[in-house]
């Protein structure tokens, strides 16, 4: 691999959780930037983020890309400016950017010409007055759920539409299946119903709402997103965290992973009507959430992660209490989850259902347990470690079959590693303060933070203006990468397996819709 040859040689290179001067990123001509992205992805790098930003000239849009080199723990940053109302889409030669290009088009009214699947992402008006890539002739924005859905025609072919309001207590989204009998030819996922304008609201920040936006980007990933946000702020402010703060952040992040993984294993059991594990894991998820509440008062970790460190310290009695709770939860989880792998009726439903091939996962740029279930050993904690993960290594858990079983089993492997990590950290908490002062943010910088949330890679990028305010704040939730993986998993499957496949990904609507 030669990640630094050709056009990519002009990219700036930083490590996770670092900031550099914006001027260190040369403005490449669009064609050169696109060639560099293509070259990087071919060499094995991943597109962690690719986004537009407003320019002083309203007829121009800046484009910024972050490529992750997982083998060398490096992030390559490049940028360009595009004039007018469109650019030549890169998606036909580099499918990994397909949703990023649609997002750029929607946010800045910049058509990705030649894009094979050119549709709105979140159905909102463009941020650039006078430019709309989607929507009506009068300049109005697109209407949610109204798009050119893919259709299969033919005798006995039928279409099933589900949502936005779903049958359970679930976030809104629209799914359209093209079916032949029970067999699914194609699933199209149309989102945007949870769009609440967070990225737009972050312009001009940080302010008193910013940390709360970070905590509610995806409520089940409060700790993960808040950690990424704080890393960005700390990089821009040149702020160091104490070892104790770093350890407590790691504990909170792994407790979040545990609650969600254990909850998902129960939900998967429920979807194959195996009620013992479903019942036990439903309760055990609560036990892990309650450990987070012991730390900070909130089951979702609200208030725990704060710029400069953490919002709550723990005393010796709390540490002992947490260790006792962890031991009990570990024993009960073991007893509940092991039932799955020993029950033939469960395994028969998990195995070979919803498989994703490794090359599909790689081409789409899947992240998190969904990618690791296809044998792709990518995990931010290992590949781009920051904070406590530079000192305490969590082995990457993978499986090779890419099916529902693999996505379930990877969760179980990870849950066990997380229990070990939390126990180890609680037993060896370094002394010291848990939160330090955070100064003003440096002007004219770009900072990137990656964190491994329970669903996968969280990527936050901030560019500050001359006054040290956010001129652009870009969030990529792992769901942004992975929703297309779910669509691929459904191909050739029975429609009745959709709930099971869906749960095996358990993606975020709000994290995608922002």
């Amino acid at each position: 691999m030669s990640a630094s040859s050709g056009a990519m040689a002009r990219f700036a290179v930083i490590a996770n959780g670092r900031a550099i001067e914006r001027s260190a990123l040369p403005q490449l001509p669009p064609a050169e930037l696109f060639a560099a992205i293509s070259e990087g992805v071919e060499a094995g790098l991943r597109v962690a983020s690719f986004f537009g930003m407003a320019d002083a000239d309203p007829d121009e849009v800046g484009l910024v890309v972050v490529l992750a080199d997982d083998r060398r723990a490096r992030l390559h940053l490049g940028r360009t400016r595009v004039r007018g109302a469109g650019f030549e889409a890169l998606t036909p030669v580099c499918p990994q950017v397909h949703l990023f290009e649609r997002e750029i088009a929607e946010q800045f009214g910049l058509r990705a010409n030649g894009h094979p699947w050119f549709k709105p992402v979140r159905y909102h008006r463009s941020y650039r007055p006078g430019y709309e890539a989607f929507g009506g002739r009068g300049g109005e924005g697109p209407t949610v759920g109204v798009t050119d859905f893919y259709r299969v025609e033919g005798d006995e072919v039928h279409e099933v539409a589900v949502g936005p309001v779903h049958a359970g207590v679930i976030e809104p989204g629209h799914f359209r299946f093209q079916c032949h009998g029970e067999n699914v030819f194609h699933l199209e996922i149309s989102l945007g119903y949870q769009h609440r304008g967070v990225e737009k609201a972050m312009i001009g920040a940080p302010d008193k709402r910013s940390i709360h936006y970070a905590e509610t980007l995806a409520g089940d990933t409060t700790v993960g997103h808040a950690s990424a946000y704080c890393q960005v702020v700390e990089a821009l402010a040149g702020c160091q965290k104490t070892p104790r703060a770093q350890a407590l952040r790691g504990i909170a992040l792994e407790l979040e992973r545990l609650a969600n993984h254990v909850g998902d294993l129960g939900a998967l059991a429920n979807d194959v009507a195996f009620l013992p594990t479903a019942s036990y894991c439903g309760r055990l998820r609560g036990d892990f959430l309650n450990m987070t509440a012991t730390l900070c008062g909130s089951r979702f970790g609200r208030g725990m992660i704060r710029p400069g460190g953490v919002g709550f310290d723990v005393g010796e009695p709390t540490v002992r209490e947490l260790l006792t709770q962890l031991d009990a939860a570990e024993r009960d989880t073991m007893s509940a989850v092991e039932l799955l792998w020993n029950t033939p009726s469960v395994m028969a439903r998990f195995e070979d259902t919803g498989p994703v091939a490794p090359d599909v996962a790689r081409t789409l740029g899947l992240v998190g347990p969904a990618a690791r279930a296809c044998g792709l050993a990518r995990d931010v904690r290992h590949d781009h470690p920051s904070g406590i993960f530079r000192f305490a290594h969590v082995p990457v858990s993978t499986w090779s079959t890419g099916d529902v079983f693999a996505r379930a089993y990877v969760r179980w492997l990870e849950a066990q590693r997380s229990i070990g990590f939390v126990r180890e950290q609680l037993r060896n908490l370094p002394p010291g303060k848990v939160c330090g002062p955070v100064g003003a943010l440096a002007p004219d910088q770009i900072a990137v933070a990656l964190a491994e949330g329970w669903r996968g890679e969280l990527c936050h990028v901030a560019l500050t203006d001359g006054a040290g305010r956010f001129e652009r704040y870009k969030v990529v939730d792992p769901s942004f990468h992975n929703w297309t993986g779910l669509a691929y998993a459904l191909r050739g499957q029975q429609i009745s397996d959709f709930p099971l496949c869906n749960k095996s990904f358990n993606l975020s609507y709000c994290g995608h819709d922002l």
Partner: protein
Amino acid sequence: MIPVIRARLRQGYRTLAYPDGPPPSLPDRFRGRPRIDASRCPDGCAACADACPTRAIDLRDGLGIDLGRCIFCTDCVSACPEGALQYSRDHRLAVRTRADLITRSDRELELAGALQGRLRSLFGRSLKLRQVSAGGCNACELDVNVLNTVAWDLSRFGIQFVASPRHADGLLITGAISENMRLALRKTWDAVPEPKIVIAVGACAISGGPYLDHAEVANGVEGLLPIDLYVPGCPPHPLTILDGLLRLLGRLERAGADVRSEPGDAVRPAEQGGLG
């Protein structure tokens, strides 16, 4: 089969004794109902209001907190130089009217009273709810879902979430009501047969929460549909939600409040508010 039985014995019986027994214990750092002591406020001090991310603090008539906007972050507590604000561990927060959400030092929270008359007789022992999630962060949905776990076992109270609005007695709504969900919420509401109720769970559904005044949201259900029960929080604890539901159905004694008439109980026509 034997491992399944062995696991069952090991896991034991886990359903909470509450409400016949005591409520489950909450962690020491749990942030419940705020306690206000306005007598400590120095003249002209607005430190709490300045720190509040959601404009939940109203100083016009002495220190007051709008629990409908509060996200229980305690940024006001950190900002207050005099200790005039504290968050207690009292989980009981649900009320019946928007005005009751304003809490002050001289006013106890008017906890939710029960439905009366026909609604009480129809829903008191069987309440089927359709949940609509519309522009939030999914935390409220998750802690509503927790009520269906074996520990909380919501169905023992006759309360269930149903898969169609046609089967429902009302809506339980979460989220700030994104513009992109406005029509879907209207259609779902229209499809629920009369008489019907609305329960707004979480700061988003009551006021917009962290997304207050974003162009992309409608600042919650208020003004769109008539709300029968407000459950504050960001997100509310499952115990807070259950407390609200049980009070609404008259399953809990009314505590810390004097009884007064509830104008919201009459059966109302569906055509209210500005949805659609």
